């Protein structure tokens, strides 16, 4: 057996029986552990840098925004976005650092005359987190056994998207069908070490449960191009029931009604080198009611950004972007939704005549408020996307 470092005295548990409780403690709970987790924006680097404004974006976006915006793509293309973030959880006495990486969206677009088709795989909710700690088990006979415990949630919900759009003059209409799918594996493992005071050798304890998710969601959108300088877009989505199927006999299948979502956005090319984009939305997540220990809330979000074009480097265009966004998160442990705010920025590099592009979006923000919500995370996120278009 492996000797473990002794836990500080304050964490030595006493009594006949040691309770290592299941209740998430406010203050050290990552947002990904609340409700269905943290909502992942299926956005590429350009949208992330512009305050999350992937909808109604002139020039097209590989973000999973409005299907009507597909007509902004004039040539077939493929885009892939990867996001990594560093997170600091604020606690009453000390802060904890964690981080995670994820692919946010992978999308292929193929326009055919006035039509455009797209398939995509994108994130929806991230439920990943893990925690490890060392403590000491006090047994009934007064002996103690050190242990190391790991608790993990691994998984989340993703979406597979198939979209079609058609341009009718300045108007574009689009619909998409999304299959929500995913799984979550919850595990805990308690590994005991050697007792220093005669306690018995204890076998490792553990348990796990795997949940699988599935649901359908339909999205319909429309966009209006006013000349080549203004694009206004909107999308509404309606989800079915999210079915949650556990793999254990002890739990039964359950379902949650997915919300109705309305989202609008627009971008304006103010000058030949300056683009202004803004978007916002609303979703009635509160119809889910309580999800585990979490409460669900109706949420709104909005964001805006500026894009400046005019710089070139290594033979390619180098657009610079800046923005900000604010969003409410659908799940919290309190009565009100958690707020997330961030300032954003980034740049792109479009080379080979615009057929290849690299976009970097940086976000610095926080979510929750320790004083009011008992929960607060600050985060630094970088989203890097790469796109290829047919010449």
């Amino acid at each position, binding site marked *: 057996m492996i000797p473990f470092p002794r836990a500080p005295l304050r*964490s030595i548990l006493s009594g006949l029986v040691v309770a290592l409780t299941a209740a998430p403690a406010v203050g050290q709970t990552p947002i990904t552990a609340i409700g269905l987790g943290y909502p992942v924006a299926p956005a590429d680097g350009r949208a992330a840098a512009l305050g999350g404004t992937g909808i109604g974006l002139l020039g097209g976006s590989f973000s999973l925004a409005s299907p009507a915006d597909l007509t902004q793509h004039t040539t077939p293309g493929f885009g892939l976005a990867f996001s990594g973030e560093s997170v600091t959880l604020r606690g009453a006495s000390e802060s904890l650092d964690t981080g*995670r*990486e994820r692919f946010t969206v992978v999308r*292929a677009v193929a*326009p055919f005359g006035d039509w455009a088709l797209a398939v995509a795989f994108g994130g929806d909710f991230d439920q990943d987190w893990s925690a490890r700690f060392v403590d000491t*088990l006090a047994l009934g006979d007064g002996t103690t056994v050190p242990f190391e415990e790991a608790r993990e949630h691994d998984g989340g919900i993703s979406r597979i998207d198939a979209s079609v759009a058609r341009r009718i003059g300045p108007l574009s209409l689009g619909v998409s069908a999304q299959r929500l799918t995913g799984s979550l594996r919850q595990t805990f493992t308690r590994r005991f070490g050697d007792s220093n005071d005669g306690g018995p050798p204890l*076998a490792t304890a553990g348990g796990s449960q795997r949940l699988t998710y599935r649901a359908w969601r339909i999205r319909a959108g429309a966009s209006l191009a006013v000349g080549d300088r203004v694009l206004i877009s909107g999308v509404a989505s309606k989800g079915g029931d999210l079915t949650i199927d556990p793999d254990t006999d002890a739990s039964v299948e359950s379902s949650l009604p997915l919300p109705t979502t309305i989202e609008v956005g627009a971008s304006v090319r103010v000058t030949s080198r300056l683009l202004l984009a803004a978007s916002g939305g609303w979703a009635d997540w509160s119809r889910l009611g309580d999800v585990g220990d979490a409460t669900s809330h109706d949420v709104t979000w909005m964001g805006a950004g500026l894009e400046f074009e005019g710089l070139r480097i290594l033979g390619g265009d180098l657009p610079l972007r800046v923005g900000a966004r604010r969003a409410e998160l659908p799940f919290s442990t309190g009565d009100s939704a958690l707020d997330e705010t961030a300032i954003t920025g980034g740049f792109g590099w479009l080379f080979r005549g615009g057929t290849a592009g690299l976009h970097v979006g940086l976000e610095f923000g926080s979510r929750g408020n320790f004083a009011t919500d008992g929960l607060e995370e600050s985060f630094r996120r970088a989203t890097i996307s790469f796109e290829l278009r047919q010449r």
Partner: protein
Amino acid sequence: MPAAISGVRVAGPIVSALAAAALILGCTEHPLAPPSESAPGVSSETRDVSLDVIELSTWRDTTFTGFSLPTDASFTIVAEVPTLRARTLGRLNVPDTVKTFADTLRAESYDSLLVRVTLDATRSEYTDFPVTVRLVSLTRAFSLDSVSWTEARPGVPWATPGGDLGPVIGSADIAEATDSLVIEPSVSADSLLKAWRAEDGGNGFALLVEGPEARIQIRAVRFAYSATLEGRTTPVAQTQLVQDRTFTTDPPLPATGTALRVGGLPSSRLYLEFLTPDTIEGVPLAGATINYAELVLRPLGPPPGPFALERTLTARQLSLLADPFEFGPKTPVGAAPLSFASLDPDSLSAGKPIRLNVTTQISAAVHGSSGRIRLGLRPEPDAQTLGFWEFGSAEDVAALRPRIRIILTPPAQFESPP
């Protein structure tokens, strides 16, 4: 149409790239290191619960005695102390013939008899010296397996308790603690050995101790003599180990009662059987991780006088492969020892229980195999000491009854939705 053709041309690579990306789609996570009291997520408390076996209707325990007799022990005893009188009894079956390199011949005469006694110096106790050890002929035959201090064989009492002593064959003094002793017979070796040869050992002999109080443990008794074979003149040296030997004690080994006994001679083992309960202290065992399980046996007070363990006795935990309470052939035991327990007289005297690890059996029972657990505890090896120790059984008072202790972690109650 060119656009459509173009789109079809790129669809294949795009779909391939999309599939590849989907395969690697996912997240990685850097673990948090929170204090235990504020760690998020579902876990399950590890519980330390115990059960008095009287609460188990399926509990059965007993002592089985007689697996090994004094005949099987690697030692015998001679003693004259206030708490114990003991004599070693033996029979030397002198062979009719002697085998040489050339042939096998009948012995015509015997001479130069010496009796070499190997003592266990570390397990012999003396109050003073010299101590005399006598080798005495017995006038009544005894049964090797059933002789006792009072009876030569069942239903045939000794005229004198301890054995009907005849002529002294020889004696020797122990002047100091030693591991060997040589007795030079005072009788004719030829007549003695011929008599024993004629009667397959005859009534046998007894070794006894006289003088200051002493308790001597004997490892072996050997008769060394020379035999002159028929038609030969040169005597042949012979050494014979006395294999038919035993010892008797006064008082005899206390009879077993309801207590569970381990050790002693005849050797005792404790056997027990129970069905794993469904719950302990209200905690269901089904599906739980059994981190540790033990049977706690509480020692009774030291056995009387000479029968208390003098030093640590190693005992082996056995798995029983059949019902030990069913009358019939000896219960078969599992091939592999489960674990060992040390019976230390000092800690047993202090009331410290012994603990038999039954984690494997309880865990197997909880996870679907037979819940019936059958265990034994025997000295390892059997017949290693006269001493024994007893433990409380289900028929004792609560403070002495065995207990089952289980440290377990019930299955985590993961929530769905999380």
